[in-house]
């Protein structure tokens, strides 16, 4: 009797746990609508695709878990020790071993291949630079230094527009972010885009997005970067093209006003690595390519091994 009670309580505990997986898939979605304890909004097409992949894996793993849990709990009840009972004497079954090796292998390899294309859309198929707004983002402890090319369309020239923690982009346009950290590793993370990209000192990494609708988002630093890591937050404003243009020209005229009185000579010496190619390894066979770090443009020239 005690055995039976014990077995049933184990069964119930196991069942609750087993249901957790499916409940998670369905229940949470319903609950989430009201309490938002689930995936954040999807702001880009990529976010939707990442969520599809996430949900596919959630379904597969939930089904597997429920199957395992149900079998486990059933065995625990069915084969609990009984007085005078004798266990079967059985060492295994090669056929079963092959089945439960091959099926999981096929599933996970399929998941790998399904993930592959999406991964390449996120991290390899960047928009062409002439078809995108290119923004140079250089995080440091504990802020995001953001730089637009300005009127001349070139980076690291006096008319560059710089902001701190304020990233403005137009809706419906490809945005290409070039990241390089000034001190330690940071990570550019916008939860609504489902995309994260580390910013590493000494090398340039890239991430891109295209947000169809205007909105306000937060840029979170996702890589531990020191004691202010938790408050290293940026603001991303997605405007209509018109609003963005207005903001941009306002920034430009402010910059022009700053530059107008005594013309400040650019600190940068002329040369290959101080133009807009400073952040990107130049195409072709240029022997050295450099990274300009910090605001002292051109002061430091370093070899970058970008791993790309």
């Amino acid at each position, binding site marked *: 009797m005690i055995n039976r009670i014990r077995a049933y309580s*184990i069964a119930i505990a196991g069942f609750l746990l087993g249901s957790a997986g499916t409940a998670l898939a369905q229940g*949470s979605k319903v609950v989430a609508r009201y309490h938002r304890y*689930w*995936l*954040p909004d999807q702001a880009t097409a990529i976010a939707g695709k*990442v969520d599809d*992949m*996430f949900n596919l894996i959630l379904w*597969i*793993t939930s089904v597997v*878990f429920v199957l*395992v*849990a149900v079998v*486990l709990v059933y*065995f625990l009840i069915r*084969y609990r020790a009984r007085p005078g009972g*004798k266990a*079967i*004497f*059985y060492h*295994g079954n090669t056929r*079963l*071993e092959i089945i439960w*090796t091959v099926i*999981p*292998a096929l599933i*996970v390899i399929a*998941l*790998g291949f399904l*993930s*592959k294309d*999406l991964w390449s859309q*996120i*991290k390899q198929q960047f928009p062409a630079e002439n078809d995108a707004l290119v923004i140079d983002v250089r995080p440091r*402890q504990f802020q995001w230094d953001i730089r637009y090319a300005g009127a001349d369309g070139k980076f690291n020239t006096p008319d560059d527009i710089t902001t701190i923690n304020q990233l403005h982009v137009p809706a419906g346009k490809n945005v290409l972010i070039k990241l390089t950290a000034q*001190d*330690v*590793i940071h990570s550019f993370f916008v*939860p609504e885009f*489902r*995309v*994260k*990209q*580390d910013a590493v*000192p*000494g090398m340039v990494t890239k991430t891109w997005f295209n947000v169809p609708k205007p909105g306000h988002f*937060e840029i979170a630093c*996702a890589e*531990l970067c*020191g*004691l202010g*890591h938790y*408050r290293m*937050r940026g603001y991303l404003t997605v405007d209509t093209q018109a609003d963005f243009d207005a903001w941009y020209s306002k920034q430009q005229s402010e910059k022009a006003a700053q530059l107008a009185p005594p013309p400040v000579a650019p600190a940068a010496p002329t040369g290959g690595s101080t133009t807009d190619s400073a952040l990107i390894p130049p195409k072709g066979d240029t022997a050295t390519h450099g*990274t*300009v770090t910090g605001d*002292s443009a051109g002061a430091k020239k370093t070899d*970058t091994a*970008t*791993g790309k």
Partner: protein
Amino acid sequence: MESTAQVLERPHATEEHHGHAHPQLSFLEKYVFSLDHKVIGIQFMFSSLFFLLVGGWLALLVRWQLGFPGQAIPWYLAGFLVPESIASASVIQPNTYNTLFTMHATFMVFFAIMPMMIGLFGNFLIPLQIGARDMAFPVLNMLSFWLSVPAGLLMLASFFVEGGPASAGWTSYAPLSAVADFTGVGVGQNLWGISLLVLGVSSIMGAINYITTIINMRAPGMTMFRMPLPTWAIFITAILLLLAIPVLSAAIGLLLMDRTLHTSFFIPAGLTVTGNPLAGHTGGGQPLLWQHLFWFFGHPEVYIMILPAMGITSEILAVFARKPIFGYRAMIFSISAIAFLGWIVWGHHMFQSGMNPVLGTTFMISTMVIAVPSAIKVFNWLGTLWGGQIQFTVPMLNALAFVSMFTIGGLSGIFMASTPVDSFIHDTYFIVGHIHYVLFGGSLFAGFAGITFWFPKMFGRMMNPTIGKIHFWLTFIFFNCTFFPMHILGIAGHMRRIFDPNEYPHLAHLQPINTFITVSALLLGFTQLIFIANLFISLRTGKRAGNNPWRSNTLEWTVPSPTGHGNFEVVPTVYHGPYEYSSPMTDEDFLPQDQPVDPERMKLAQGMGHH
């Protein structure tokens, strides 16, 4: 099965008697600087439990800040023990917070789980299970323990130096960890490195000893494929240790040089510190180099912490299902497959690091594939339970918890193996939930299972089963309440390692989950005191165990509990595999490995149960 052939011929070495007499050992020789593998194992047990408490305490402080941000540490978390330098007026500060989770993970990984899985079970079990009198190198074994002590003391000492202990995460990503100005931690981070270098030497000594002992000192008849699975698992683990630890040590050596000799292995040129150029480093280094080295060690490390747990679980499931382990060889092959594949998956920690995305795809596929041998193990454990006579003892309950919790931890790993999904959940609480399902739900439950299972052999007394069951059920419930919701946090975009999630409006609404987790974690933490109490109470008052309280087959149960120095009066001869439970060749439901079978009966039984 190979047992058939061996039964008829009696191996020759059986009659070799226990030659050397033991002179009276002083207290120091017997309990402190002991050469006896069992005593050394027990020493590792107590040191690992001590650091489990330290690491757990730090975790609860981390949770306190997340559950009740900005509130003073309550008396029951011993706020008075927290140095003023890291918590002014008992309120946790941002730099303290980074220190707390860094040291929590460091203690748990290197000073609690590893010594428990390898130091305790490796030392205690290997000679007993293979029928050896001791380890191959007893002095090396003693040194291995006594090097881990200064390593632990150095790590603890870092709490009392200026600037406090390391705060760059247990993964110590450079350049954050490579330049003191980036964290404000000077000596503390150096002590972190030096401590792990010393501990690395200790681990390598242990690994060499285990491998040598298993290869050379098995009793007659103890073929490799008759070895119990815990010994097999620790054997493979020792090989991983021997190959992985030197890589960590080398990486730490380079890091310490960057920190103290101003080399630039991990430091590129042109860095700034709060806007000013970083002085003293010429640059030319690569931050990603650290990550490659660290994870080349770090991923095998995960298996170093889980393979012994798998071996322990296999043993205990067979014993309390009273059945042969299902697929003994499949178990060994899958452990070996995990150990091999474990070397080519490290890049899955670096998908978002800036590593070439093509490489990311490659590491994704290898990572997906490594899920397969783990799945094989789960299915074989289920197969072991099928048709058994399952006894719900305390070790069995904990081993069953391992099976179910490890299943969750394994399945949640598939999410982050998928590169695009990882792009979202990387560095979120989803990962924190996952790793705790593997290391607490996995390793630690197996640790509880193993300690309660072999406690009678260590001390000659049973652990109190009632207290054991209370501890188990409370742990099981609070464990899930603590770590399951972390997945939800991660799915909602909650980054890990942030001092105050309320900084971010998109996380503020998650505070109720954080508070719930913290309350559960506090209950989970204090439940562990029940285990410690049970251990000490049972040392004095536990029921006398006898040689073989669980009616188990392996050789450690053929000798007295506790076992004397030298283990075996007569080196045993082994006649069959370790899991011949409920065999038709005997009237009992178990068949000790050193017990020959009547050849007549064997003939009758031929064909039954063998495939």
